[in-house]
């Protein structure tokens, strides 16, 4: 009897693996290799859909080749994210949208902490799913945008060797000359949207500091859990 809603949620198992891919695409992981040094400049000069394709393939390649990443090594993952992430994703905008009204009340210091903790939560949570994306392939879906657009939707799908394709979409915003990702959706579930209610509840009950604390506590909890395993 649970079939309908669980079947719909049943694809959540793919949500895990694919969100990991998305996260590292967002992280802008560049494959180790010859082009690595020059990559940032040439990549950010591309159109948004080309950017997403390049990043997705690079991330998948990096994961396929690196055993430590596949086993979910958190230090390696964080290093990758720290090195490569900033040019390609706008974590601040992502956090701002997720926090909503509370953001306006927050001081620059609080905003910084929120961004930092939210990013840590995402990396920490989805890193465990990295090992499952070994044999996935990325396909681009038709990209419709005007050349003058500054906010676009890039649609892709991730195809595992066995099983159904998973829809994976990105929202990018143009700031100065470069495009940055600020939201990602897996199977139609947008990341920012999915955190809005939780963040709003926390801010309403305990203020911005309460939200920072909740995120920090959760991160600490996850870190102890990873250390034990």
């Amino acid at each position, binding site marked *: 009897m649970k079939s309908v*809603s669980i079947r719909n949620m049943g694809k959540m198992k793919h949500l895990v693996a694919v969100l990991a891919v998305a996260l590292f695409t967002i992280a802008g992981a560049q494959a180790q290799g010859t082009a690595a040094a020059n990559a940032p400049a040439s990549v950010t000069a591309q159109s948004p859909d080309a950017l997403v394709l390049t990043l997705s393939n690079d991330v998948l390649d990096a994961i396929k080749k690196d055993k430590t990443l596949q086993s979910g090594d958190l230090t390696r993952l964080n290093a990758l994210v720290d090195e490569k992430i900033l040019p390609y994703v706008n974590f601040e905008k992502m956090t701002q949208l997720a926090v909503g009204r509370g953001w306006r009340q927050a001081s620059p210091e609080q905003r910084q902490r929120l961004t930092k903790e939210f990013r840590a939560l995402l990396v920490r949570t989805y890193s465990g799913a990295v090992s499952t994306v070994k044999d996935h392939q990325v396909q681009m879906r038709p990209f419709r945008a005007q050349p003058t657009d500054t906010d676009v939707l890039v649609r892709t799908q991730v195809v595992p060797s066995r099983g159904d394709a998973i829809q994976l979409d990105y929202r990018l915003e143009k700031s100065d000359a470069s495009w940055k990702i600020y939201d990602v959706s897996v199977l139609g579930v947008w990341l920012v949207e999915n955190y809005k209610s939780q963040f709003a509840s926390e801010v309403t009950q305990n203020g911005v500091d309460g939200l920072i604390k909740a995120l920090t506590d959760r991160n600490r909890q996850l870190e102890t859990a990873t250390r034990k395993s």
Partner: protein
Amino acid sequence: MRLGHASMMRFLRVTALAAVVALTGACATIPPTAGSNPVDPLERYNRHVSEFNDRVDRALLKPVAQAYADYVPSPVRECVGNIFSNIADVPNALNNLLQGKPAAAVSDICRVVINTTVGVLGCFDVASKAGLEKSEEDFGQTLGRWGSGPGPYFVWPFLGPSTIRDSVGRVVGFYTDPLDYVDPVRTRNSLWATRLIDTRASLFPAEKVIEGAALDKYQFIRDAYLQRRRSLIYDGNPPRERDPEDEPEQKPASAPDQPNAVPGR
């Protein structure tokens, strides 16, 4: 769903056990903001039922599903999953037709034919490799296509998340579920139980992520469910809903000289 007498007794016994399990713990803690979200006016009720469902799940369904995942080899589980997926293509076809998508309906029927014959009763998903994309449709989505809004979020005991519209869809879905027409009753119930366990086992990886990623598991699941349903109705391409609170802060704090209210408008 039609249950024979023996199965009915078993069902009642299970329900009684579940009720005892659930009542041995307190109900969910309800945050003070409950009910303030317009999509979820029934939040207090929903949280209690979700807590109940969680307990039943932990006590009954999850251990069985865990055993299934641990002891049944992966290719066998994949075959089982594919067989049920094949069966589900029949209501998929029907709903695609009702939504005015005849091409997709025909594709679904081709999938059933190919997978049942070449794919050995659906064990192997040959049709997907042949390029026939899998649909995911149900009567709740059909109602959405026909213009019905979702109605409040509503969690059913045992059955889980839903909305008023999707609940109506689910009831209709019972009549279009091929498993419902299997005789004798014992076989039907065994098949139904296997499908349930198989689906539950497939949720384990996602569950781990939700435990870590969600600050509030109830809200996380609710919002993911609602987004997913909306996306399914539009077949992956829902129109964007702009949140008025998302207005970007382009202007720096020191620009009060640009009043945004035009008097007289």
